């Protein structure tokens, strides 16, 4: 286990964490202010990935694909909110789970009708190809480094919007008391639709960036969605800060566990035992972490203030 490998895996963990954060931000905001459990958030991630692939093929330009796919995902998100989810805010979580489960089935099938069931592969845009020397002797793919930077920039921007702007104040105020926000003259319905759309666009951004490094296929949203649930449970529902911390922690633990658990076990167990126990344990690591966090803090690390 060399230092280079450790640094590289840490960066990979950070990169996964950043992707998880893009998903978690929308999900936690939507839950925090609208009290809506949206299982279909992963579908929006998938829609973002497919749309960017489609736009890339049409335009041939990565930038154009980004410029088209993000607003398109935003619109898809707002449509979903208006058509299917708006009337579910007052319902109990079970109804929300069921309806958004229905949405997942719909979206997964819809993309497989349009693009087929087979995975699509896209390549890293040429401008972001190659490697960059991050530390002396440590080279890291430019594309993955870009994801980290974009993700951190979005996190920072989102934190600023939520903490400094009027819209951010309304979002926080709505989380604690939506009736009062409405009674003071704010169109809460519209606010919700916009917030939902922005959450969708962030998920779409995640999907868009995921395209070239993971596979684009129906159901890709759910795999990451469940990781995102773990993120949110660890971080505390409704808290942006919790989403950041939870995402980085989960991204790191998962990546490092998969990379190093087996060799570490090999130092104490026999090689065949380590071979079989390593991957099994690595796949369970974040869930064990979640259980541990819950045991000590059932509300997550950063429980959101609610009125």
């Amino acid at each position, binding site marked *: 286990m060399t230092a280079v490998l450790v640094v590289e895996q840490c960066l990979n963990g950070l990169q996964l964490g950043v992707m998880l954060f893009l998903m978690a931000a929308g999900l936690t905001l939507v*839950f925090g202010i609208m009290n809506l*459990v949206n299982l279909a958030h992963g579908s929006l991630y998938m829609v973002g990935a497919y749309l960017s692939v489609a736009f890339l093929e049409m335009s041939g330009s990565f930038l154009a694909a980004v410029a088209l796919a993000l607003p398109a995902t935003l619109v898809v998100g707002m449509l979903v909110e208006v058509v*299917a989810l708006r*009337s*579910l805010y007052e*319902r109990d*979580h*079970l*109804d929300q*789970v*069921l*309806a958004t*489960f*229905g*949405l*997942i*089935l*719909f*979206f*997964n*099938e*819809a993309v*497989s*009708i349009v693009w087929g069931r087979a995975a699509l592969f896209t390549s890293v845009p040429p401008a972001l190809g190659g490697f960059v020397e991050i530390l002396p002797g440590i080279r890291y793919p430019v594309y993955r480094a870009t994801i980290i930077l974009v993700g951190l920039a979005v996190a920072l921007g989102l934190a600023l919007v939520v903490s400094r702007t009027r819209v951010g104040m309304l979002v926080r105020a709505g989380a604690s008391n939506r009736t009062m926000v409405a009674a003071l003259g704010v169109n809460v319905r519209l606010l919700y639709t916009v917030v939902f759309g922005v959450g969708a666009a962030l998920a779409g951004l995640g999907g868009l960036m995921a395209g070239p490094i993971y596979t684009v296929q129906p159901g890709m949203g*759910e795999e990451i969605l*469940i990781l995102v*649930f*773990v993120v*949110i*449970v660890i971080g505390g*529902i409704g808290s942006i800060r919790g989403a950041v911390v939870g995402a980085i922690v989960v991204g790191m633990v998962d990546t490092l566990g998969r990379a190093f658990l087996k060799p570490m076990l090999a130092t104490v167990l026999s090689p065949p035992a380590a071979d*079989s126990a390593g*991957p*099994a344990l*690595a*796949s*369970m690591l974040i*869930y064990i972490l*979640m*259980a541990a966090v*819950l*045991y000590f803090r*059932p*509300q*997550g690390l950063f429980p959101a203030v609610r009125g």
Partner: protein
Amino acid sequence: MASRVRAVTAVAGAAALAAVPVVAAALQEPFYLDLVRRVMIFAIAAVSLDLILGYGGMVSFGHAAYLGIGAYAVAVPALHGVHSGWLQWPLAMGVSALAALVIGAISLRTSGVYFIMITLAFAQMLYYLGISIEAWGGDDGMRLARRSRFGGPVDLADPYVFYYVVLALLLAVLALGHRVIHARFGMVVRAARSNEARARAIGFSPFRYRLAAFVMAGAVCGLAGALLANQTEYVTPGFMHWTRSGDIMVMVILGGMGTFVGPVAGAVAFLLLENVLSAWTVHWQIILGPLLILVVLYARRGLWGAVSGGSLGRG
């Protein structure tokens, strides 16, 4: 009045299920035998989920985990040459109960949306665990060399015998569930769902009772998993995939939760719908998805609720 309608429908349903093999034999369509057996196995799983979801208000989104555990509890001993159902099936129920005990003890510390996410996450953990265990076939799973062996006339290789075993177990589970839910234990679980603060104020600590119900539901679903392994004669981590948990939950809601016949009716409706729609188009889920949303928006009490006028928490 409503209770009479319910009783009549329930008896008629049981009689219809008992008649299926006869009809299938007469029509020379063994496929129906297979299909209805599968329906009944999922009905057992759905009934077990309804025990905690409908009566206990615990929205467990990881119920397929026990289905998978039960199935592996048949396939893993079989892999090592142990085919006795007397060992496999109690093992399925025991290990499922143990898993439910651990998962429940952690997730019942929370409530609401946390509970949903945590149960989902734990089930998904077991799914990935299944994938990562190469010795048990990893992603591909295992073929079951032969069905569980019980000796005597109970030979599951005979599709008719297997059918009636499943039917008997379904009826037994329904009967047991009915007793439990109306006994003191069931009253506490239902009361805690109805009004937790009130339940605590009159002196109940809901946690232990909920956990016990959670474990019972896990064990019964583990049994359904053992049956499912025998039904399909192979086992994969896919049994535990979260969409499977979603399917079981849909069956319960579709049929009408908090009732006894509801989950059975839901399993029938769901699997028949799947059968009909998938014969029509491979993209049948594009119809099922919006259908689900419509059910949630406009038919919350489910099929059985609409038929019998039964309502939540009783029946």
